[in-house]
């Protein structure tokens, strides 16, 4: 399966009469984009805001961050199952804009946790997104639409906007083309290089708002999913999207998946990338055991891997769940590298482990995502207003316009990356 991602570097974004890219400048016709997005009857109205690097702007009620991308020469193939028609993602040509994202917000949310993005101050210094320009899509619900149903619409609005913007750049000069070509059926069996697979914990239901799934895989609920093999290009090319209002993985992060890109980069050099098994964290012990043994079996006996990197979804339960898969892999003789996320900033690193398994002796700290940051007030708020509640685990109420807010980093988009892409490590002091 061969995927070519053709990237255009965007220098700045502005509003204008015709949506398109000229000399690296993206122009967006707001009315046209709003009209496109309100075709979805679940959305009453959409407000577009542009956010630029260097501004003292805070974006709140953030649901997702999306890199503008579209398929070239394939019909209705963008984000299949969400925007495009159902088909397998990950082959052919994809046009991608760099230095710009689409931010999807839900200003009317009742969620306790929504992400935020500061373009300034300490929040901005930590987030890779503060260097980018953003087209912010704020969606407002039509009457009598269930909240979760509307959230799906608002998330899809972000994906649609991303495809619309990328498509407007067709014909512009390409700055870089990257090829992702992995022929898993004909991997070089004679190679002496170690075969490394990737176990992708795709989802965890414990974050489900109102207990309802947040679809992230070809448009569907993955909670009942059995471990399954997918091609890594499906992940990079829109088959998987963000869920659960960022929490260290948004669509942009998945489109630029850390471990998958790194395995690709090294494929044929110091390892053979033998494929991806994805699975979902399970809440119940028997289901979990079934998933653990099936996933390990696919890694060992179907992909034939010597080693596997395992990444997780945010939180404690996925941490326990991931260790279960890793233990089963080790039992079958597959060496593991397990990602963890310390859940507290007080103590020693070994105390952060939620499992006790001797075989799991290679543990990677993907970021202490619950580390707290104090953020100063913005001049401008997008996606809400100064009375928008901002979550804090302490029993205090705080709002987006307060002089300072106390925020855990997993709620600040663009700092941590559970797919391993961020250059962050956790240390004891």
């Amino acid at each position: 399966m061969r995927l070519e991602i053709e990237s255009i570097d965007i220098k700045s974004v502005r509003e204008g009469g015709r949506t398109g890219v000229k000399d690296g400048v993206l122009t967006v016709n707001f009315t046209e984009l709003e009209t496109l997005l309100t075709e979805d009857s679940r959305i009453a109205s959409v407000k577009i805001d542009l956010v630029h690097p260097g501004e003292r702007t805070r974006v709140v009620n953030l649901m997702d961050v999306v890199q503008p991308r579209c398929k070239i020469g394939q019909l209705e193939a963008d984000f299949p199952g969400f925007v495009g028609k159902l088909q397998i993602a990950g082959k052919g040509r994809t046009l991608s804009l760099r230095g710009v994202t689409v931010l999807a917000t839900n200003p009317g949310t009742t969620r306790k946790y929504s992400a935020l993005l500061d373009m300034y101050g300490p929040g901005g210094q930590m987030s890779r997104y503060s260097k980018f320009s953003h087209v912010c899509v704020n969606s407002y619900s039509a009457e009598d639409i269930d909240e979760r149903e509307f959230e799906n619409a608002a998330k899809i609005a972000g994906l649609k906007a991303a495809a619309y913007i990328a498509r407007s750049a067709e014909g512009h000069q390409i700055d870089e083309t990257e090829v992702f070509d992995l022929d898993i059926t004909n991997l070089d069996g004679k190679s002496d290089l170690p075969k490394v697979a990737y176990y992708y914990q795709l989802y965890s239901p414990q974050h489900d708002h109102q207990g309802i799934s947040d679809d992230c895989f070809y448009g569907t609920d993955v909670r009942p999913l059995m471990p399954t093999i997918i091609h890594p290009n499906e992940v990079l090319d829109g088959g998987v999207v963000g869920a659960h209002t960022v929490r260290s993985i948004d669509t942009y992060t998945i489109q630029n998946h850390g471990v998958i890109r790194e395995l690709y980069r090294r494929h044929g050099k110091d390892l053979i990338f033998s494929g991806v098994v994805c699975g979902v964290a399970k809440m119940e012990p028997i289901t979990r055991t079934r998933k653990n043994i099936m996933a390990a079996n696919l890694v060992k006996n179907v992909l034939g891997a010597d080693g596997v990197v395992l990444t997780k979804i945010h939180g404690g339960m996925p941490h326990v769940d991931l260790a279960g898969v890793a233990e089963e892999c080790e039992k079958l003789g597959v060496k593991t590298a397990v990602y963890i996320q310390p859940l507290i900033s007080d103590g020693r690193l070994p105390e952060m482990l939620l499992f006790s398994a001797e075989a799991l002796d290679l543990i990677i700290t993907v970021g202490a995502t619950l580390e707290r940051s104090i953020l100063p007030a913005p001049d401008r708020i997008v996606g809400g207003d100064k009375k928008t509640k901002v979550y804090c685990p302490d029993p205090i109420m705080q709002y987006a316009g307060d002089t300072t807010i106390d925020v855990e980093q997993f709620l600040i988009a663009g700092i941590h990356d559970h797919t391993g892409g961020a250059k962050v490590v956790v240390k004891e002091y």
Partner: protein
Amino acid sequence: MNNTKLKVVHYLNQFFGQIGGEDKANTGFVVKEGPLGPGTALQKELGEHVEIVATLICGDNYFSKDPDQAGEEGAKLIESFAPDLFFAGPAFEAGRYGVACGAICKAVNERLGIPVVTGMYQENPGVEMYRKYAYICRSGQSTRDMVPSLKKMSKLALQLVLGEPSKNLLSGENLPKPEMFDYFKRLIIRNEFCDQSAAKRSIDKLLAKITGKPFESEVVPPVFDNVEPPAPIADLSKLQLALVSDGALVPKGNPAGLAGRGNLKWTTNELDSFLPDDPGTKEYEIAHTGYFPVNVLENPFRLIPVDVIRQLVKEKKIGKLHNTFFSTSGNATVSRRCTEMGNEMGEEIKRLGIDAVLLTST
């Protein structure tokens, strides 16, 4: 830098403070102006922009009678000097002196909010007791290591008061690297920016592991205690039972302020008033943010089986349900604090004459 010198106060015990040996260990606090004993060498290390304005001295026995109170007393005595920085010791291997250095540092830091630096040998009990509250440089066992210890303490202190914050820390704090400044880690976990993504690090290390080469895990797995379950209780009809839960069921408004995640506190509530037979008044809430509280909010007896136990008491199968309900929020709390809370609760449970507890979780 302007011409105002940074002011330092230095703490010593009766021996290093030149009052006397063990026979003077009961001496109370004394304040002397300027540096004294090891302070003279420390002053040299600190250089001309920093001045030891006073030395605080106390006998080891006097201090160790009640370290918390002695710390308070000492901290009050030096307040008027308005120091920018505080040193204690180094205490080397001396246990009472180490505890005193740790306690005085803790009290001064809490009262005056200034950096506090001391030095100890790794086995000094003061290290474990006070590493969270003070920068404790690693020192040798005895005074032979005085000058190298003072050098370390001085270098670290100057970094704390005059140094630039680390560019690597996401928090932007001025938190010196323990390895670089040779102090005992303070049980703080921090994110650092680094040169390599987690993806690259994990694959490098995994390849080493596959090929049998040495690799370094970013976390060394702990060895957990194995807790043997106690023997079953033969006769419940005579005993007093209490309920304990980490599901964070608390009175409305969460008066004890349990955190939803990373909580470090526990609280007690009286079942009679908090959860009467029909808790329909809904005067409770769930502070925990790690599970769907819907079912427990509908009926709190799903978390703690008060109704069933009350029935069993009526049927005389259980002696008595103790009125105290122990509640904490068990969501991503560090295991060390869980152990501490367990011990604290255990003491209270013993004090109340409770014979058995039923622990329910989520």
